[in-house]
């Protein structure tokens, strides 16, 4: 296996009852790479990304992340691995009983060995990075969709992970917010060398962030390559997807 590969999924199968969601997925992501998994609704994208962080266990196959075999890890070892992985949820998943400050402090408080003033400095710095320092005392319910995503992104990076997984990072956002969130993802890759796996069906987002695109259809990866190549692929499912997405974007 390539030494640079830090996420590797080998022949992953997953079923829920009689429904086969993933059917033999193979996916390698190299250090510093920004991989994007695209596909229509119900193609298994969210299920796929959840395997990487151990939220869902595969029925068959192996997953290696940062040289550790996920399915063999005990609870404490899994937690240790998770500290190297940030996760941006589709809904943001901010804790709604906490302010923005508390959402970020909650993670630092438990996992970072920082003094109180160092932790506060890091929160201010991270909020400035997502251009929302004024929202520090707000509750998630007081934020717009785009602001929630940016705060959730701030929370995903606050522990300085090596990998970030993005579950539909721009779904439901207006084009300005899509660009803003996508630019932040690119900056994470360029400035901090963070490896990322994003699942999305948003062409604009994929265009901005993707090094490699993996097209998922009915639990199988149909094609892998740069976005401009994938979008010209002649498989009917891919052609239909890019055709309808382009119409929507226009």
């Amino acid at each position: 296996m390539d030494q640079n590969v830090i996420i590797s999924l080998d022949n992953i199968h997953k079923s829920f009852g009689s429904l086969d969601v993933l059917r033999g997925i193979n996916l390698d992501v190299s250090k510093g790479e920004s991989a994007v998994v695209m596909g229509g609704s119900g193609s298994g994208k969210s299920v796929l990304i959840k395997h990487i962080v151990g939220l869902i266990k595969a029925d068959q196959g192996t997953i290696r992340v940062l040289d550790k075999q996920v399915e063999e890890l005990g609870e404490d070892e899994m937690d240790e691995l998770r500290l190297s992985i940030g996760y941006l949820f589709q809904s943001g998943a901010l804790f709604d009983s906490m302010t923005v400050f508390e959402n970020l402090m909650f993670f630092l408080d438990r996992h970072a060995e920082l003094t109180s003033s160092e932790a506060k400095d890091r929160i201010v710095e991270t909020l400035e990075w997502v251009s929302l320092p004024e929202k520090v005392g707000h509750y998630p319910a007081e934020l717009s969709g785009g602001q929630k995503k940016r705060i959730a992104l701030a929370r995903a990076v606050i522990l300085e992970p090596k990998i970030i997984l993005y579950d539909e990072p721009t779904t439901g956002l207006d084009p300005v917010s899509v660009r803003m969130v996508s630019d932040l993802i690119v900056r994470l890759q360029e400035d901090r060398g963070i490896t990322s796996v994003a699942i999305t069906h948003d062409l604009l987002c994929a265009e901005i962030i993707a090094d490699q695109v993996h097209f998922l259809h009915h639990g199988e990866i149909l094609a892998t390559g740069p976005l401009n190549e994938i979008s010209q692929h002649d498989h009917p499912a891919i052609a239909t997807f890019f055709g309808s997405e382009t119409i929507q974007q226009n």
Partner: protein
Amino acid sequence: MGQFFARVWRKPFEGRELLRQMDEVGTKSFVLTGITGLAIGIVMAMQSRGTLVRFGAEAVLPNMLALSVIKEIGPVITALVLAGRLGAGIGAEIGSMKVTEQIDALEVAALKPFHFLVITRVLACMIMFPILTLWTDSIAVFGGYIESLMASGMDYRIFISTAFESLRFSDVIVDTGKTAVFGFIVGIVSCHLGFTVRGGTREVGQSAMRAVMGSSLLILLTDVIIVRLSLMIFGTAG
């Protein structure tokens, strides 16, 4: 339930969250349980007085009131009132955290949601139910005294000495202590139903409703078992 007993001894111990939950369960329930206690005490005294007067036994009213409140009515009514308030609250809170992926967010941040959400809430219920029961019992006895004062001008020293003369310390311990079990039931049932929600807001609402119903029924059933057991062990109805 098995997971609770397996994990409650293991780190991390979420002390701050436990205190926050004790405040949520306890401090914020004092008014509700206090009003409940006052109403129970006054109504019981009013209802019993007529019958006791007819048999010339009005003097035993304080004693009858204290025994009924401390041994049975106080613990069960307090637990049922708290099941309504907390069962719905915990079920809906955890259920909505589940459907909005907040529990997954705790999991992927290595924050052990079971410890943070379940153990703290169940322990808070187990600790605060007996305290709130003692509070409700006290207010109920006080309510009975107010009624006696207004109806017959009874002196408070006579009321207190009559009320507690045949009450044993073990009665208070066993009958108040059983509410820790009721607290466990409310906590574990509500957390379980919240954690297993699938779907959206409708299912969250249903899980909150089921948490109240399930907790209330189990409290009544468990009460019967505990009373039977305490009769066998202590020779006194628990």
